[in-house]
């Protein structure tokens, strides 16, 4: 059965979804549109840092999109079906990519049949494609209401600034109490103590710090017991540094002050970032080297897509991380991209003294899996670590950072694995979760690669070995 507009109307969850889908019908929104074996797929730049990947099975209208929407099918899936049904866009024939194969292998049964209980429930007005053609009433600009809105925004900003400062004062008091009772004592009741202050900081609109403190107990408990108290000093000391930097932002370099605001919780929307003419932009070929996913206490999943620059852009950051937040309830555990994907795109970095976080501004070409070796700098593990120390001096609350290495070995001491530089004798402990998956690397000799260092453990992400490529799974 092929896709028809009637079928799309039947699948659409509501009229609004169809109207949103219509806006995505422009081929320029879709750097990739391809087809093979009864499947069509594409990539669509949405509001997230990572473009969404959409696939539709023409036979049964089964679909999958990497966006975090709770509507099924989402507007991206509907748009792809629509473009296919009305033949308005050209779909190139291409081999089925790995991410589509992954979806196919996991899927069981047809998803096209409407749920019976929905049919039995109260009848809803059926969404109609024809209705989406009604032009929206043109918004008339009213200068007075614009002024009122701007004034309200400014008032909200000032109120929030005050609330944040009040929250930081409360945090100082709380932290003084913890220091009086000692860090050994803090670790024992970290969950309750952090939860309380995190909730208070959420109330005072310092969500960034609240998030750090809320997830602190989890981070501490992944570490061995004896090092937890000293790790608590490191973590709480960083939060205090951020709070001080925020208060004294005017005395700091502009970029460091921006880092402090971001760390406290002032977010920058995609639109604001893209309209910032001074934001750092890098148009290059990138390689996805790691996709990290972590459930947060606020019921969002943080998905980080780490990309390593493959083409020359002297003086520009070699690495970018795209961060998306997806509701845990959607079940999505990964972003749209797979490790190994090659992306030709312009990337815009958030202002920072160590630019890492970015958004894809323009996708020059759809992502493709590539078997090419990763282009890595000729730096040893020890030299990369020295760079890290330099970056830490610039941004004292620096979080996870990628480190590359050449000719290092994975070595074992008991159950703990290390990445070891034989020449300098320097080594970093691998993340305990990799004790099994990275074990085969202990028998393959020297490797080149890249990993993520969080100050405690090194998560090996990618290794070029004599047995081929190894990637974190």
């Amino acid at each position, binding site marked *: 059965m092929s896709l028809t507009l009637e079928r799309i109307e039947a699948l659409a969850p509501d009229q609004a979804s169809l109207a949103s889908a219509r806006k995505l019908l422009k081929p320029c929104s879709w750097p990739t549109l391809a087809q093979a074996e009864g499947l069509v797929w594409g990539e669509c730049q949405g509001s997230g840092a990572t473009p969404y990947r959409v696939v539709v099975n023409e036979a049964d209208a089964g679909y999958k999109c990497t966006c975090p929407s709770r509507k099924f099918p989402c507007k991206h899936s509907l748009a792809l079906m629509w473009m296919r049904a009305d033949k308005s866009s050209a779909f190139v024939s291409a081999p089925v990519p790995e991410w589509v*194969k992954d979806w196919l292998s996991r899927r069981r049964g*047809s998803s096209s049949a409407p749920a019976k209980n929905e049919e039995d429930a109260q009848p809803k007005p059926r969404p109609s494609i024809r209705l989406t053609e009604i032009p929206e009433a043109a918004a008339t600009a009213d200068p007075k209401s614009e002024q009122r809105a701007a004034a309200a925004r400014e008032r909200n900003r000032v109120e929030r600034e005050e609330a944040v400062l009040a929250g930081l004062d409360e945090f100082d008091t709380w932290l003084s109490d913890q*220091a009086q009772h*000692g860090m050994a004592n803090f670790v024992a009741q970290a969950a309750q103590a952090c939860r309380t202050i995190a909730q208070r900081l959420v109330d005072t609109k310092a969500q960034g710090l609240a998030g750090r403190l809320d997830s602190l107990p989890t981070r501490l408990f992944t570490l061995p017991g004896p090092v937890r108290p000293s790790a608590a000093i490191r973590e709480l000391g960083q939060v205090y540094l951020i709070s001080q930097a925020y208060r004294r932002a005017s005395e700091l370099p502009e970029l460091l002050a921006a880092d402090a605001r971001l760390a406290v919780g002032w977010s920058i929307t995609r639109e604001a970032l893209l309209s910032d003419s001074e934001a750092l932009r890098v148009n290059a070929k990138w390689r996805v080297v790691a996709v990290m996913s972590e459930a947060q206490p606020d019921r969002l999943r943080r998905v980080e897509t780490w990309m390593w620059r493959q083409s020359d852009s002297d003086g520009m950051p070699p690495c970018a991380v795209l961060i998306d937040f997806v509701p845990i309830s959607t079940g999505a555990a990964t972003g749209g991209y797979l490790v190994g994907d090659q992306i030709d795109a312009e990337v815009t970095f958030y202002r920072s003294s160590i630019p890492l976080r970015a958004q894809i501004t323009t996708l020059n070409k759809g992502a493709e899996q590539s078997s090419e070796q990763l282009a890595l700098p000729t730096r040893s593990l020890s030299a990369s670590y020295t760079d890290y120390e330099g970056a830490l001096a610039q941004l004292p609350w620096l979080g996870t950072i990628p480190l590359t290495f050449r000719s290092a070995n994975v070595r074992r001491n008991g159950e703990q694995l*290390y990445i070891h530089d034989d020449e300098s004798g320097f080594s970093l402990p691998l993340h305990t979760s990799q004790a099994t998956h990275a074990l085969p690397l202990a028998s393959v000799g020297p490797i080149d690669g890249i990993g993520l260092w969080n100050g405690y453990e090194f998560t090996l992400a990618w290794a070029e070995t004599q047995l081929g490529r190894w990637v974190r799974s």
Partner: protein
Amino acid sequence: MNRTMLHAKVLPSLLAGTSRHALPELVRPANPNSDGVLEVLSLMGQALRFERPTTPDSFIVEPEIKDERKILAGSLRRPLVRLLTAKNVTEHPGHALARTLERLRLRPHPFDLPLIDAFVRSNAERLGPTAQHWADRQKPEAETQSYFDPELLDESNWAQATLSRRVTYLEQRRRDGADAARTLLESTWGQESAEARFRLLQTLQTALSTTDQPFLSVLEKDRAPRVRALAARFLARLGAAGESPALHACLERIKQSKSGLNRKRTALQLELPANVKDQAASRWILQTFTDVSLRELASAFHLKEEELIESASNDEPFLLALALIATSDLRLDLLELVVAHLPSAWEKMVESGLDTLGTMGELERQRWQEIIVHPYRKDLPTIYHLWQWLHRITDAQAPVAVMSTVLHAKLLKKIPEHECVVWFELLTAICPPARRHELRQQLADFDQSITATPLALLDILDGMEIDGPHG
């Protein structure tokens, strides 16, 4: 203040609490309104962040494993991992993959071993030394073995190979020269584990003769009870232990009579104990007749083995017993005669709980399968557990003749719809290479969501054939 001083003077205060262990006086807050504790906390935290991680004094030296098998082609790695880690997949694709990897002397990529850990543990012996080392990695060193897997075994290296290959090798040697094979077994007997002793001893069933008797007599004092029991069973078959109790128990239940008007023929009938109800009869038969051979039984009635089968031709329970004994004796020629009188031998054997074909080689297992499936012709059963049992017990792909019947009978179309997924996986797993194309064609008639796993399995198996040493 330097790092050493921070560690010596400040860290203890922060750990114990400044109320208990005051900060040293040398700490002067920058802000006169502050007590300086939080600044010191922050400074200490940053100092700790700049401390380089410590490197252990020594690392473990990883063993060098010589694995001569070819690593699976890169293009097949991801599909293999995807298939073996997919949810709700039956055990059949795993068995088919392990078999094919072993047959083609391929091995999974070492980097994939952690991803398919459960598969590797279940099939370690078939996947080569690297995989076996992986599966044994958490065992104490004393329980591990040397990881050696040469392409060809001979007397000099057979003891170092994996147990399954050693069993196959010894089995073959028994066929070529029973005494020499036994001598070979005797030469390493002292170093074998209980499991190895049991499995290797099973090979003596092939061409068992009185020359094995002295060796078997020694084994009656073996440390492992199941080795002692197996040796005693063999001795009983050889008649070395006087009248076999197992044979006596069987004869007690067989009623002999004469039938025929002109030419009187011996007719044998098995009388089941009164307390053995219908459903338990097959199990009782398996238990009772496991330890006797066809030759012993025939001799007891002064008949040839073929005559024994003929005289039991009207008694289903006794025919089942003979089918089980023929299987255990590896007498497929006689099994064929039994099945001619007992077309439902397959179902009866399933009922009996038979769970092993002993030391049968792959070709024999395929032949055995062909014999018990043959009577059904195109009316093949559509009962899943019968086929599941057949695959499990033979652990081999189906003979071409059986698969041809399956495909010509359009068995796929007769399967209950809700069972299609498991059936298709099973039929794909047992399909020999020569019939895969036809199977693909028949699978194409079904919904893609049902056939995704079977088609992926076919792709991998076909890919392996191309990738293998002869591909």
